């Protein structure tokens, strides 16, 4: 009996050890799709058949719009109805998890076939060789369906790495009532824009103070954490620097106009138009401040914010307890970013879309064609129309526009016109910037520009000190001849 127990215990222990080993084993999944798709591809090579081979396309998708993830099963069904041999398998992810989930899968060599991400993120995956160039697999009809400007954003060098879902502008948003009270002709500004000097005076008018305490600021922009990157990037575009590199591929943020923007950032806080605690105001907080009437203008502003404000207004009207605590009815007005240093205003365009990926193994032409079909399905037609309407975003495909004709959207027509005017002057795509230069610029931005900007906003360094630090780091990264000198 004792011996039997010993043998049993040994077997149990070895089983546990083997289980651990098995769990770490590779499932030999390749990036040609799922194992099923690999087998099917192989079968297709050996069996001569008139039927198209079965294939599975995987997609990692965040909640692009409020109702987007609710439609996943319908999207999978519709895709399968369109292509009976193909299966679209959607993996949902939250915005918070999206990048980390994708990066982990990419670095393990087994990313999804399609992932939703910002066009600015494409270069790092191209640099790694993991983004899939779909130039040869995208048909002429597919390409012709997209507006040219957003499609350019999905390019890097000569390669096309996916299809755009929407093109938005990073603008500002104002409270209609407060703008009118401050005597600001917002309709004129929507049409003609404004200079920083005019903007500075206008936001001063929006400040409400009593007994030394400010109950409403003129302007609050989210600058805590990653949002600080947006703040400066949006402003410098209207100061003659539409991208980190000029057309000669010289680093642009060493221009004297950059220093002017930094000075203007500081002066708005010193005026009392922006809170002195701005460096700790994150995206959630400043939106709360907008809805609760603690600021007249907020940034960054996206078209979808009008939808969020409208929904909150309805909740307030209906006495719904889920309305933001302390919020007041606020009519959201889209406003352009002011121009700086006598330069022409240029809206900051943001293009997000469906990017195609490859795994460690080169995908077969059949699988690549299927991935393109799935990406196009998601970026056009009914899916795009529904999603962009939900986001209050402009339609960028002919098929999407057609589908959207039958859908109604409750938008302020002035806002629609303002967004369209800004899109017309939006910063163009820069697929010519080499990936290594782009990667260096991102690192410089993360390790020098953002930390120094946080210190500048907190009042701990001067604009000149920040400018000098950025210039020194830029010269170190790109060389004396690699930076703009004016």
């Amino acid at each position, binding site marked *: 009996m004792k011996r039997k127990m010993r043998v049993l215990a040994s077997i149990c222990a070895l089983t546990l*050890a083997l289980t651990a*080993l098995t769990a770490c084993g590779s499932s030999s999944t390749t990036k040609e799709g799922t194992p099923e798709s690999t087998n099917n591809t192989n079968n297709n090579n050996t069996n001569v058949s008139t039927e198209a081979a079965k294939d599975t396309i995987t997609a990692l998708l965040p909640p692009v719009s409020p109702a987007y993830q609710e439609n996943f099963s319908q999207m999978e069904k519709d895709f399968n109805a369109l292509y009976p041999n193909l299966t679209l398998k959607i993996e949902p992810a939250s915005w918070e998890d999206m990048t980390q989930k994708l990066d982990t899968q990419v*670095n393990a060599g087994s990313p999804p076939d399609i992932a939703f991400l910002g066009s600015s993120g494409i270069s*790092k995956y191209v640099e790694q060789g*993991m983004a899939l160039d779909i130039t040869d697999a995208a048909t002429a009809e597919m390409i012709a369906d997209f507006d040219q400007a957003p499609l350019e954003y999905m390019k890097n060098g000569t390669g096309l790495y996916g299809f755009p879902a929407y093109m938005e502008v990073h603008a500002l948003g104002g409270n209609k009532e407060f703008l009118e009270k401050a005597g600001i002709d917002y309709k004129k500004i929507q049409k003609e824009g404004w200079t920083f000097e005019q903007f500075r005076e206008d936001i001063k008018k929006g400040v409400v103070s009593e007994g030394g305490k400010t109950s409403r600021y003129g302007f609050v922009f989210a600058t805590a*954490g990653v949002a600080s990157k947006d703040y400066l990037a949006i402003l410098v575009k209207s100061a003659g620097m539409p991208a980190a590199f000029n057309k000669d591929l010289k680093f642009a943020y060493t221009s004297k106009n950059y220093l002017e923007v930094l000075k203007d950032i500081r002066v708005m806080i010193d005026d009392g138009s922006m809170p002195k605690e701005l460096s700790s105001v994150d995206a959630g907080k400043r939106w709360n401040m907008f809805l609760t009437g603690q600021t007249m203008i907020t940034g960054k502003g996206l078209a979808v914010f009008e939808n969020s404000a409208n929904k909150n207004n309805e909740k307030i009207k209906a006495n719904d307890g889920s309305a933001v605590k302390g919020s007041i009815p606020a009519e959201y007005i889209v406003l352009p970013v002011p121009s700086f240093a006598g330069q022409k205003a240029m809206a900051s365009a943001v293009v997000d879309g469906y990017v195609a990926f490859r795994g*460690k193994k080169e995908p077969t032409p059949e699988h690549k064609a299927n991935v393109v079909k799935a990406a196009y399905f998601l970026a056009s037609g009914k899916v795009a129309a529904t999603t962009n309407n939900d986001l209050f975003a402009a339609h960028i495909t002919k098929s999407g526009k057609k589908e959207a004709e039958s859908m109604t959207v409750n938008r302020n027509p002035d806002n629609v016109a303002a967004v369209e005017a800004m899109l017309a002057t939006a910063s163009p795509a820069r697929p010519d910037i080499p990936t290594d230069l782009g990667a260096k610029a991102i690192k410089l931005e*993360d390790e020098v520009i953002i930390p120094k900007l*946080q210190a500048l906003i907190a009042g701990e360094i001067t604009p000149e000190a920040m400018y000098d630090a950025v210039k020194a780091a830029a010269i170190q990264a790109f060389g004396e001849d690699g930076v703009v000198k004016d």
Partner: protein
Amino acid sequence: MTQIAKPIKRRKIKGDSGAGYAFIAVALVIFALFTAYPVLSALIISFQKYMPLGSKFIGFDNYIDSLKDPLFWKAIKNTVVYTVLTVPVALFISLGVSLLILPLKKKLQTVFKAIYYLPAVASGVALSVVWLWIFDPMPNGIFNQLLGYFGINNVNWLGATSTSMFSLVLMSWLSSHGTSIIIYLAALLGIDDSYYEAAELDGASFLKKLWYIVIPCLKPTTLFLLVTGVIGSFQVFQNAYLMTGGGPDNATTMVGLLIFNNAFKYFEFGKAAAQSLILALIIGGISLIQFKFLGKDVEY
């Protein structure tokens, strides 16, 4: 000359030894898979420019780049400052609380142990959200309201270089002592009552008993908590990541966060691996020093 072949000795696994080897195998396999293999991989990757489709050997470049990088040294400095400010205070608070709990009845002791251990059970993200609320920079933030009662202006706790590190340290001081309290309590309960009785006969005060009985008897426990505390503090990541993101002006960028950023933000896995091995060497060195100077007369 002919050689006489020696008969091969076959070692037999006798008695309980077979089961013993099997049990050791489990631990060894798990250790090899989840500790030794990743460490070895990190060592190899640290000499490479890592790419998912094929890495390139680049020698010591990742180590040289790291040692030349001012941000790496700033992160080391920040980590040392954080460790120096948090670990000794954490030990002091844990010992103090344990001494306060010790005279209580067993049931009450358990209640307090559970209360102090609760933050360790809660999600770090949830705790950080609460702390973000406490450190709200506006005048209606919790800490700022407290300051307001004394007529002090609101402080931009996490948004200014002058206060951001202190805010993280304060957060550490006011939370996460549960494990240390439980360990200290167990050690305090292990001190023989006869020591206290003898001291009382000699008319020793509370402080004398603390100094001559409690502290020497707790030395192995204190050394253990100090070493593990320093190791944990050097690897701190979550607080900086969730509360400040390393800012402002990299004032709270710890080595752990820098390694994470290099690996998962910039995909520089080689550099991240090199920095993590440098960090491991630093931690190993500090632990050795601690054992050498503080563990001389420690008996286990």
